């Protein structure tokens, strides 16, 4: 089973990288972009096929290491 973890800064926390990309897009003429958040994508290849167990374990990984929940939020996507 594979897991994709997307990590971005929490809403309300200034994302300077996202702002820089927003400005660059705007200078290229893409003026319809209202906001940009730049984050990280972490792909995990898991030995298990137990979906519920995998979800709980990846969540624990996020809380302990993969994300800093003071500033970041994460989303977990599981695939067979």
């Amino acid at each position, binding site marked *: 089973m594979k897991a994709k973890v997307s990590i971005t*800064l929490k809403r309300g*926390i*200034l994302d*300077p*990288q996202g702002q*820089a990309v927003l400005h660059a897009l705007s200078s290229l003429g893409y003026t319809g972009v209202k906001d940009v958040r730049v984050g990280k994508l972490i792909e995990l290849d898991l030995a298990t096929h137990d979906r519920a167990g995998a979800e709980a374990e990846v969540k624990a990984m996020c809380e302990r*290491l*993969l994300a*800093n929940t*003071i*500033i970041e939020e994460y989303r977990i996507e599981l695939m067979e």
Partner: protein
Amino acid sequence: MSISLRVGILVFPGSNCDRDCQHAVSQVMGAKADFIWHKESMLPHVDAVIIPGGFSYGDYLRTGAIARFSPVMAAVTRFAEAGGLVLGICNGFQILLEAGLLPGAMLRNRSLSFLCKDVHLRVENADTPFTRRCKPGQVLTLPIAHGEGNYYADQATLAKLKARNQVIFRYCTKDGEVTPEANPNGSLDNIAGIVNDAGNILGLMPHPERCADALLGNEDGRLILLSLLEAIKSGRYAPKPVLAHNVS
């Protein structure tokens, strides 16, 4: 300074200010400075620990995020819980935040640039083991060198830090005014350094070890190291020995 004082300096893969710290502590201040490799699960006998700057583990994932799980950090946590003095400089500050030994987190600098320059700091609390040689409100000039020094904490944490005088240094103008323009990296409330609730752990982004030696033209950093060594000498911050060397 008595030669019997021993300061342990942690070394992670990617630390690059460890030798500067050793030079400042031993050659400039006259204390003993021992390197402690990150794989050690027990500290040797030391009176204080410095977590130096650098790019531990290549700053992968987040600054300090991987270093905090090194075996030595469990030993440092026990040392700090027993009352021992811990000074985290730059990446050392980031590691202390990731370890939860200090509250808050670091974000990328607002400018997205790596900043390497002198800044002015106002001493907000001179009644700590790290600032006792400073005067309240004194303006120090220290160099910064970081890409992620934009300190963040939620409002409740910030309120607590302020209420308990845990903000030790703020970025300021050369005259000591704390202004948005004097804030190099976007840090919340111009925060450059904080202590924990118990007051025995300091994290700061600027580098005192880089301006302790008179040869380098600025000795402001010496005040912080001298404060630390004098605090050790006072005996008030000796870690309780049983706890400090417990292997859990």
